[in-house]
Every structure is written in structure tokens, then in C-alpha cells.
């Protein structure tokens, strides 16, 4: 069994349901000495689906252990994808050309949809609660990553609702252990492939 799982594209409920199914499959068939590799290439997606995905991973002992030990390779991870990528795993590598974007989250609601708005016009309680939970997850993650103690970063984050960090900045702050595609590109150019 190949113990690598790709989490890519817009993170919809369907996409994340597929990822959790794959994780369960790997958790059942995986030998103890082989770590899961999670590969991220995503601009983000549905905040609430991401929360449910993390709940599902942590709610099962086998997937929780697998996810805690996982190695995470990030080609692109913004918003929800950044939350998931750093919420899981024990070792992170990031593309040298990438940025990581943390985000306070957003959601789409439909005017006239009784699931989204109460009769008095207020946003449905479940949306408010889920959004609060998402914000808590993001701020707890930023605490864990040591980003909460930097006043400048915090000011930027709370003023704009998002925080972008370059790959070098992530390496400098210890969020990732290695950047990939740095030295390698020099070797490739020596071989004559046009890098565009």
C-alpha cells in the first residue's frame, strides 16, 4: 500500500470525505514503521468541512495516531488548507516558491434560506458557532506555531483577516523543517531543460 495521500484543489466536503476514507484505509493496512505522507496543493475551501474533517481524524484512535506521526509536504496551502496542513503531522516541508496563508475564514450564506437565517433575520446559530470554532482552531494553531507572540504579525492578521508567510519566513520561524526545489533547480538548469 502506498502511504501517501493527496489533498488538493478546492477543499469541499466531498474532497475531504475522500481524504478521510483514504486515511482510514491506510490506517487499517499500514505497517507500523511506515509514516503517512500528506501532500497539500490547495488554495483552501470550505471552513466547516475542514473542521469536520479534523474532528473525524481526531475522533478515531487509528487515524489520530497516523495523522500525528504524518509527514506533510506542502506545494501550496492557503486558508483552510493551511489550517489542516499544520493541524496534522509531525514534520513539514514546503515548496521554496510557496507562501502559507492563514485566514480567519469565510462562509457563503443564501438570503431566504431558512437553514442560514432565522426568522428574525439573524444568522443561524449553527453557522455562528461553527465559525467561532474555526476561528478558535486557527488562533490555537497560531499559538502552537509561535505566531501569536509576534505583535506585528498579530496586528496584520487581525486587521486584514489573513496572514501570508513566505517559505523562507516559515523556515526561519521553524514552521517547516526544510524547503524543497531550491538546490535542485540549479542542478536541472545544468541539464538543459528550460525552466520557463
Amino acid at each position: 500500500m502506498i502511504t501517501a495521500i493527496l489533498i488538493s484543489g478546492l477543499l469541499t466536503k466531498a474532497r475531504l470525505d475522500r481524504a478521510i476514507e483514504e486515511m482510514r484505509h491506510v490506517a487499517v493496512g499500514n505497517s507500523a514503521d511506515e509514516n503517512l505522507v500528506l501532500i497539500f496543493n490547495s488554495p483552501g475551501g470550505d471552513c466547516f468541512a475542514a473542521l469536520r474533517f479534523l474532528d473525524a481524524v481526531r475522533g478515531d484512535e487509528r487515524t489520530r495516531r497516523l495523522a500525528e506521526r504524518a509527514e506533510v509536504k506542502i506545494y501550496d496551502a492557503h486558508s483552510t488548507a493551511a489550517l489542516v496542513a499544520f493541524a496534522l503531522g509531525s514534520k513539514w516541508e514546503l515548496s521554496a516558491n510557496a507562501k502559507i496563508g492563514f485566514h480567519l475564514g469565510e462562509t457563503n450564506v443564501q438570503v431566504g434560506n431558512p437553514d442560514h437565517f432565522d426568522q428574525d433575520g439573524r444568522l443561524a446559530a449553527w453557522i455562528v458557532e461553527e465559525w467561532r470554532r474555526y476561528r478558535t482552531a486557527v488562533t490555537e494553531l497560531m499559538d502552537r506555531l509561535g505566531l501569536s507572540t509576534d505583535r506585528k504579525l498579530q496586528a496584520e492578521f487581525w486587521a486584514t483577516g489573513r496572514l501570508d508567510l513566505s517559505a523562507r519566513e516559515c523556515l526561519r520561524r521553524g514552521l517547516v523543517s526544510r524547503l524543497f526545489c531550491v538546490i535542485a533547480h540549479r542542478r536541472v538548469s545544468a541539464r538543459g531543460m528550460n525552466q520557463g
Partner: protein
Amino acid sequence: MIRSILISGYLDDARLARVLGEILDIGAAAEPSGKLVVVFESEGGSLPALLAFMECILEDAPTRALIEGADVKIYEAYSAAAHLAFWMGGRREMAAGTKIGFHLPLLRLQFWDVDQDGQRVDAQLVKRGREAETLLAGLMQRHGLSEPELKTELYSSGWLYLTAEECFMRGLVHELF
């Protein structure tokens, strides 16, 4: 070092140069026992880029060995990506319910590539196309896809699609996920 590589999106020179860089980087790391895992999610790409990439791999014995022994996980692979996914690797897994698609080489012609009198295409381009066609035929032969019906489909429509389940049944992939 994480020994997994993603090959995704449109496979042009830049994208495949990045991939090659990652492969060389992993090959240079001092972990000889570790296996390379290549993950595909791509609708295909450029034929010249594919050929250049394969040439680079073939000319370097350690890189070639690394690629030949790799595990390949396919979420999506059409055209050049399908060619690469089945050209490299020892063990393959494929997403259930998906398809792979091989096709005859496509040449993107510019006005100046065609002799306006004789309506002949630049010989270098045709040569490159023929090379790719030969590679595709060899790949199909290697994977037991030489049946007349399959060839008829490829040469009549230009494409050959196989479902994940059919790939599994034919032994092209070892497991569906």
C-alpha cells in the same frame, strides 16, 4: 527528507523541470533504502516537455533506477501524465471510479511550421511526433495493451480510455483506492 513527489496540473517545461529537480534532490539524499512515491493529478501536458523530461531521466542511471523502482499513486492521469505514470514505477495504485487516457501524439502547429506550397509539416516536428508514437506503442506493448481492438480504438479516435477497474483487471495497477 520526504520522499514523495506530486506531479500535477499542466505538464510544461517549467513544471517538469521542477519535478526533475525534486527527483534529483531525493536521489542525492543519503537514504538509499527509501522508496520514491510519485503522486499524479494531471490532465496532461506538452509533448516536447515530456520527451525532454524522459531523456533527462534515461541518461542518468541512478535517477533512472529511482524512477523505475518508484511507487505510483494516480488520482488523475491523462495524455502525457498517463504516459509518465505508466512509464515510471514498479507498483501502481489508482483512484477507483476514475479513468486514464492515452492518446496519439498531438503536434501544435504554427503557421511557419507548414510549407505553404507542399502543405508539408516541418520534418523535425514530424520526427518528434513519430518518436512519441513509438514510445507509446512500446508502453502499450509492455503493459499488454496490444490487442487489435484497443489499437483500433486508439487509431480511430486518437484516444484510448481505460477505467480504473479495467486497469486493475488487466494488471496495470496493483490496487484501487
